[in-house]
């Protein structure tokens, strides 16, 4: 039996462009198991595009993406399904199915993977909703939830099948500081309780300081910085200091 690859995710020279505009210009990144890595970068800088490559939602133009040692860059939709079962994704706006209740949304991945026992489904949904502090909200429709609740419900749906890795796309964007803090604590809790590998795309420094084991900065389609939180803060690189301090060089 082969031992599992040390790195859960290995990305080599990933390139992507849309309508002639280069978004990713050779991204290289290794993500070991159990680590929480925060991918920083400006809005529109390709962070979400990068994240979508990791679950095969966008095929790369060139380069290699290995998940658990398996190359996924050239797999088709059906071949990607086993890989996707290992990964959960939290979309920016939650992407809950708006024709279903919160319960049905959270139960959806279980039922789709063949869980026939309603008792088990109910137990697992209750546990997932409890983990994201959404007990008693299971019969609500997504349209009746606040932004923060929608994200938490979506997180409950992403974790119900206990994936090895969770991808978070701007988990705190558009939320007030209190709800953001709740989401940050949830991400930490996922790591401590479920031991999942987490990749968090954000430009929120408060969130980064709270959750990151490691930080990478995506700039102009490449990884500009890759290191610990302490290294990020002690860096004298003007690009990094400007980003951390939220400084632009636009003329007033």
């Amino acid at each position, binding site marked *: 039996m082969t031992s599992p690859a040390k790195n859960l995710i290995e990305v080599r020279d990933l390139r992507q462009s849309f309508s002639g505009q280069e978004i990713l210009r050779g991204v290289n990144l290794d993500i070991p198991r159990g680590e929480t890595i925060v991918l920083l970068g400006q809005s529109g800088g390709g962070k979400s595009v990068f994240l*979508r490559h990791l*679950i*095969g*939602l966008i095929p790369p133009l060139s380069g290699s993406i290995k998940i658990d040692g398996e190359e996924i860059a050239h797999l088709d*939709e*059906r071949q*990607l*399904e*086993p890989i*996707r*079962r290992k*990964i*959960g*994704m939290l*979309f*920016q*706006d939650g*992407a*809950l*199915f*708006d024709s279903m209740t919160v319960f049905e949304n959270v139960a*959806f*991945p279980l039922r*789709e*993977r063949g869980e026939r026992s309603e008792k088990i489904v109910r137990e697992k949904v209750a546990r997932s909703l409890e983990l994201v502090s959404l007990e008693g909200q299971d019969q609500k429709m997504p349209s009746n939830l606040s932004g923060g609740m929608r994200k938490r419900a979506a997180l409950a*749906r992403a974790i119900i099948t206990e994936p090895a890795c969770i991808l978070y796309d701007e988990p705190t964007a558009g939320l007030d500081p209190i709800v953001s803090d709740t989401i940050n604590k949830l991400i930490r809790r996922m790591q401590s309780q479920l031991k999942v590998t987490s990749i968090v795309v954000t430009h929120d420094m408060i969130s980064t300081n709270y959750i990151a084991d490691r930080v990478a900065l995506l700039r102009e389609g490449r990884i500009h910085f890759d290191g610990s939180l302490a290294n990020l803060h002690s860096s004298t690189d003007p690009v990094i200091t400007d980003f951390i301090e939220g400084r632009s060089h636009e003329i007033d």
Partner: protein
Amino acid sequence: MKFPYSFPLTRAFSLYLGQIVFLTGETFSSIFLGRIRWRLVLNQIVEIGFGSQAVVIITGIFTGAVFTAQIFFQFNALNMSTAVGPVVSIALCRELGPVLTGLMVAGRVGAAICAEIGTMKVTEQIDALRALAVNPVDYLVVPRAVAMMISMPLLVGECIFFALTASYYIATRILNVNSVFFMQHMWFYTHTKDMVMALTKGFVFALIVVFVGCQQGLTTSNGAVGVGRSTTEAVVISSLTILMINFFLTMALNIIFPAGGKF
């Protein structure tokens, strides 16, 4: 061979046709491999078939009534009023029933399919399905396609039934056509093959509506404006395709089921 592809319109048309063919192929391969979620199919039959009945019945009643009146006004002048029954019946079975049902369903169901799938696309729900290892074609297209293939021939039959009932009522009660002659001539000249033609057309139109609606929905972009545009295009493309395909289908089916004869 470079010439036709140099026109942007030809290229766009070829691309669109290719996408539709690909989607159709993928859907039928899923159906034959048994990847059918029957609970979703039943939901869609209720949504598509049951929910379209009012539209189809009203269309049938008034088309049957007005067609009967027009044929009567022309034929009565020639002293052929008892021929109204067979003319209306054959016209309804071979053309009006399936085409009008197809157009009404394209407007009601095609638009709904496209708007629902399109909204799911722009709100990342389709990506969420994919991320959860659920194939969008299996989950969204297959149940709608199966439901349409079952519902549409039934809706066509229903449309024709109500149209003929209205025709009988208008002809015999209002226009004073002899009811025995009306019925006898109608039965004598309308054959099983006319009904088979109606149901075959209904089946083909179901495929057009469902695949155009789904394809437009799955390729929607640009938010709410995009959903509106896709939905309009879905209705326009499926309606025009129904009218065009109807001609070729009529010619082909007429070879298999020639007019006249016994069956």
